[in-house]
């Protein structure tokens, strides 16, 4: 629905996806200017410096981890997985929004996605990179895990165990990572050609020219591009659902009360989209100010994303309710104990209530249109959700493991400084990559933005209405 279809000042009229007054040229100039300039915002230096520091912390903690072993973390028996897998699931969840925005919203022809899909996809890639780190380094012998988990013909004539959800994980995450990277890169090609054409420095020209793969903008190029992009979107769409489904199998397939639940796949997917949108908002809000692209990432985007966040958040809360209900309804003593222990009995009950505050109570603010359009409020809500989604995995992993079947093996889990350093370090890695990306590549798709201009493309459905011709 366009704003013009509503009476003037009607409250139902959506906000514009691009501020008025732009032309194709001005869009191109503005967006290429962010990259092809020598003036970097001071705030960029500040954030990148902090992020890089955290990244260095990651390298230190990983080096120490490889030298000493998993024992530097707080993991123990019975809590064999803790921060490592919490962080893995958290990052892979964050990595879901990008593909959802690019692929599913594309297929649903949500044109507002255009302003945000590029950096959301980049975010996906970087989040998957952070996530993929953990399954590798959390193993006792990563130098073997790095290739033994892949099926390849070998002298031992041994295949991996295809029954293990961890093997499914390997396939799911590597597929997702490679398809996302491909999707992202294909989408970049026309813009890279624009950069090639506009860059002044011959070295840059060469570099962008190489990356643009000889794009000339011919009709045939465009035809092939559109076909490829659509196909990739179709390929990515099931992946959005499958990756987190498979990740949830890590838990659902096991016997541990609190893990062994059939609700996990849909509940994990909803949680991933929830976390992903919260993270996109967390990044979009400062970036649009920093690079002065408020005209392209408008209140319409913020509001739409806030709405999706609210909806997926409610789905997640429904998941919590189902978990609790089935814990009770199963009549199984272990499940019932798990429920009691998680909610009020156990030493980690605080984390469950904190999780509900972050993921359930606070996001309800987004019901209000006024608050949805209040950018600081939206930002704070998204920060709550980021924390809440991390806590959700803490509750699932640590709280379930520390009280399992035999009371004799019940123990506590306490993270160490290295656990926190690794978590902070991946945030550093993520932000460093993200900020390098916005500085050297177009964070908003230039050519797609141009299609949003009024009259840039034939209106869909114009024929039926007997309009323009």
């Amino acid at each position: 629905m366009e704003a013009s279809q509503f009476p003037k000042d009607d409250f139902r009229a959506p906000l514009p996806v691009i501020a008025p007054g732009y032309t194709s040229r001005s869009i191109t100039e503005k967006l290429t200017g962010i990259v092809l300039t020598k003036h970097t915002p001071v705030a960029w230096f500040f954030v990148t410096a902090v992020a890089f520091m955290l990244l260095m912390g990651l390298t230190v903690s990983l080096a120490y981890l490889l030298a000493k072993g998993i024992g530097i973390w707080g993991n123990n028996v019975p809590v064999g997985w803790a921060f490592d897998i919490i962080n893995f699931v958290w990052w892979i969840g964050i990595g879901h929004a990008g593909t959802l925005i690019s692929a599913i919203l594309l297929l649903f022809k949500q044109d507002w996605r255009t302003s945000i899909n590029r950096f959301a996809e980049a975010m996906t890639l970087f989040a998957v990179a952070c996530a993929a780190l953990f399954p590798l380094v959390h193993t006792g012998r990563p130098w073997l895990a790095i290739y033994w988990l892949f099926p390849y013909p070998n002298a031992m004539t041994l295949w991996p165990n295809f029954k293990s959800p961890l093997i499914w994980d390997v396939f799911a995450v590597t597929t997702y990572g490679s398809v996302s990277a491909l999707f992202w890169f294909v989408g970049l090609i026309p813009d890279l050609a624009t950069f090639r054409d506009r860059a002044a420095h011959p070295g840059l020209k060469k570099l962008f020219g190489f990356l643009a793969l000889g794009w000339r903008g011919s009709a045939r190029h465009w035809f092939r591009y559109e076909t490829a992009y659509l196909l990739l979107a179709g390929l990515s769409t099931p992946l959005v659902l499958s990756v987190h489904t498979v990740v949830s199998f890590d838990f659902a397939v096991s016997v541990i009360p609190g893990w062994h639940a059939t609700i996990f796949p849909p509940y994990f997917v909803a949680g991933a989209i929830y976390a992903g949108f919260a993270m996109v908002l967390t990044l979009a809000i400062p970036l649009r100010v920093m690079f002065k692209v408020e005209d392209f990432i408008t209140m319409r985007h913020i509001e739409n994303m806030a709405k999706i966040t609210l909806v997926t958040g409610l789905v997640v809360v429904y998941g919590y309710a189902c978990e609790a209900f089935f814990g009770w309804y199963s009549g199984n003593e272990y499940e019932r104990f798990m429920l009691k222990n998680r909610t009020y009995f156990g030493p980690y009950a605080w984390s469950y209530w904190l999780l509900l505050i972050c993921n359930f109570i606070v996001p309800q603010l987004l019901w209000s249109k006024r608050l949805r359009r209040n950018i600081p409020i939206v930002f704070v809500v998204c920060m709550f959700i980021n924390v809440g989604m991390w806590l959700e995995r803490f509750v699932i992993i640590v709280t379930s493991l520390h009280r399992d079947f035999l009371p004799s093996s019940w123990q506590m889990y306490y993270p160490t400084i290295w656990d926190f350093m690794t978590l902070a370090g991946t945030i550093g890695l993520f932000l460093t990559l993200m900020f390098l990306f916005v500085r050297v590549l177009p964070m908003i798709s230039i050519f797609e933005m141009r299609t949003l201009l009024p009259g840039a493309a034939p209106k869909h459905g114009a024929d039926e209405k007997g309009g323009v011709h």
Partner: protein
Amino acid sequence: MTLSAIRSRLAGLEGRSYWRSLDEAADTPEFRAYVEREFPEQASEFNDPAGRRQFLKLMGASLALAGVGACTRQPPEKIVPYVRQPEEIIPGRPLFFATAMPQGGIGLPLLAENHMGRPTKLEGNPEHPASLGATDVLAQASVLTLYDPDRSRTIIGRGEVKTWGSFLAAMQLLLGPKRSNGGAGLRLLTEPISSPSVLEQIDALLTTFPQAKWHQWDPVYGVVQGGSAASSALYRFEKADVVLALDADFMGFGPASVRYTKDFTSRRRGANPEHPNRLYVVEPTPTVTGSTADHRLALKARDIYPFAAALAGALGVAGAAPAGELPEEARAKWLPALAADLRAHRGAAVVVAGESQPAAVHALARAINEAIGAVGTTVTYGAPVVGSPVDGAASIAQLVADMNAGSVDALLIVGTNPIFTAPGDLDFRAAFDKVANRVHVGLYHDETAELCHWHVNEAHYLESWGDVRAFDGTVSLIQPLIAPLYDGHTLLEILANLNGTSGQSSLDLTKAYWTRAFGGQTKTAWTLRDAKGQAFTTVDAFWRHALHDGFVASTSGFTSTSQPAAASTTASAAQTAPAAAAPAAPAAMTGTEIIFRPDPYILDGRNANNGWLQELPKPISKITWDNVAFISPRTAERLGVPVTRSGNQNQAVLSISYQGRKASIPAWVQPGTADDVVVVHFGYGRKRAGRVGSNVGHDVFGLRSSRAPWFDGGAEVSNSGEGYYIASTQNHFAMEGRHPVRIVDVEELKKNPKAVEEQGAEKPPAALSLYPVYEYPHHKWGMAIDLNACTGCSACVIACVAENNIPVVGKSQVARTREMHWIRVDTYFGGDPAKPDGPHHQPVPCQQCENAPCEVVCPVAATVHSDEGLNDMVYNRCVGTRYCSNNCPYKVRRFNFLLYQDFVTPELMAQRNPDVTIRSRGVMEKCTYCVQRINHARIDEKTTGRAIQDGDIKTACQQVCPADAIVFGDLNDPKSRVVELKATERNYGLLDDLGTRPRTTYLAKVRNPNPALE
């Protein structure tokens, strides 16, 4: 300092121990300076173990970096085969030799497994009446002490390394003048000794020096309160229907506990015990014995005497009147029920008094036993086995008085460590300084050795020749399994030299004694017969027989009625019952009661440097690496100590003041402890124990009194407000309604055979799986663990450690619950914490599930099912995702979070079982059902053609178990014991409602309560 001087210091050391010995020798500043000059570069690094490792790491790292990309080539190592192969040694096949371990003077008979000349594992001697094949925790761990790199390696005279010759010369110089004055001022301080040959030498020494005196001090085994019991009792628990233990931990403490556990549990284990016995335990704090009781009463130690007296009165023992108030429950409920039950089982009941109870309680127990017709059937009284049994506390008090009086000028201390262990009221240290010549013989250069002029490194019993007697009197020969690693000497050798017999080895001396004994020339008249009662034809035949069997059958108190009196120096009044006199001053005991107990494994600190024992969770409390004071939940409330814990955490530290002496020790709320009692465990806080045991725990010997060494009133206990971190392997002792340990009453089981099964949740049908059931065509291994027999002694845990090369991880890692034990003993309490039901023990090894949850989740197939039903762990393939551990409902998998194995210390390498892989960092490990033993049996089956019989394969935990609670066998063999046990109605699978179908199953605990006490 010249090279020759150093050479002379180092004389007698072997090449292998050279570097370590330099460390030892480098204790003098000149020597250290010399070493630094000799090796100018990095020499100081090499003196400091940490620095040396750092240096080697840096060197290794730079070498590795220099060679990146190149092939690494192993340094050439020449392996020289035997030029002449020793007889009977087949590489890869262990040999077994009989020997015995002395502990508190009493021997525990052993079979030592010897791999290529290295003893690696100790088993009980199955023929010996004191073992019947089982051993205890201390025996299992003693093999590690043999290889302890911190054991004393040299003779030290006045701070310098000396030779054996110079020590003997110094002794001649010391004793020479004493020969004329009858040895005035010469004192010998030893632990209790039962060795006939050593006792003969001591006898000879005391004959040569009539003025010399022999003192004994053993803070654990050789101390009695309120006078010694005049006789030692030998119980026949297999004949007893009703047993009453008065503060007696007969199944958990002392060398007799192995046989007693076997006898006692023989009435409880097996398919269906027809007439289970009934055990009453009255004790102040929970013990292993108390945890097997059908009825347990927590009573202050001081109330045991009035309780025994009242019981004696009720049973009509003359002259026994209640001498004090008793709690209502004990008086009104327990005494009538107990008296009636004991009377009803006349001739088949027995009363056991504990070592820490005064002689008066022992006398009462004996009087009751006589009144109920127990003497001669369920108990016999005889002469003590140790020579010259004295009250160690009185003996050391006398020695201190004499030292203070200046009448001691030469003191020879053997084995014991009085500087650390002497009671706090004696001030042994101050008196010790007044002795002009102090000589110490011991395994370690400990606190006492440090203050002695001479120290001789003693040989470990696995390096020694000698003899010892078991608790029933059976004579065992000790034969060495290895030449002394550090050139140690035995007490026998030293005494023989003091007696003027120089140049004879321990072997010569032992053999000489028994040659004389064979000829009837020793003071003690020995009747030497073999197991069939046949006399030996020659000395040689006797000697070979005794060495092969490890003991002389005719000397056993179980089989022979005429036991020789242990030592010539004592006149035993054992045959008459003493009057049941009241203890000296029972009325004086008021206020909070303080009870002293040795640490169950570290004892008085002598085992402090044994990492296996430090890390073994103590029975019931499951604490590792520390000593604590037990208090009851009510007392804890009074003191403001938190009663519940959610995990390992800081414990409140108690300040204890007793007779004006103060000490602090962490509090541990132990349900089952009597109220207003503080049970202080001693043995920790060593200062010179070695790399493992130094500065671990709290030293409370200062509190102990020589007059009341086991318990006394008048302690002032307060909460100091400080905290101290305790690493415990179990923090939840409630079963949470899940019935991991199933318990039924014997009557209930008779009425309802399904009583055990009904306690568990519904079992899913086996046919639920989509996969076809695998038929195991050959073997199908399985295990049954009888919880009715298990006492929770934890010997299985330490046997597993020894057999399977399980590393020690240290307190900080145990605190993070990363201990590596493949089998653990879970302990649960039920009911009200102030008056708990239990403890109930449950050994949990890998359950070897048929539908193992660990197997499906491993991404690299590192844990798979074998065609004999084992859940195999492939270390080489494991990448360490820990998913298997998460998914194991029993949490029996252990992960190498860090590099826990010691790959550096050469001494420890020799200890390891060559049949079991050493696991490195990042690998999961778990119980394998001792697959190496299964494979040995399979190889034997192939070479000999004889099929594996039931009982051929014993897992390490099964073999050590004194209660025979663990049975392993082939489930395809319908006649095997394990099949028989699994067919009983007591059989159940742990968490079998999960559908894991465990191979290891449990037999429910059956209580046999007295209806009058329910």
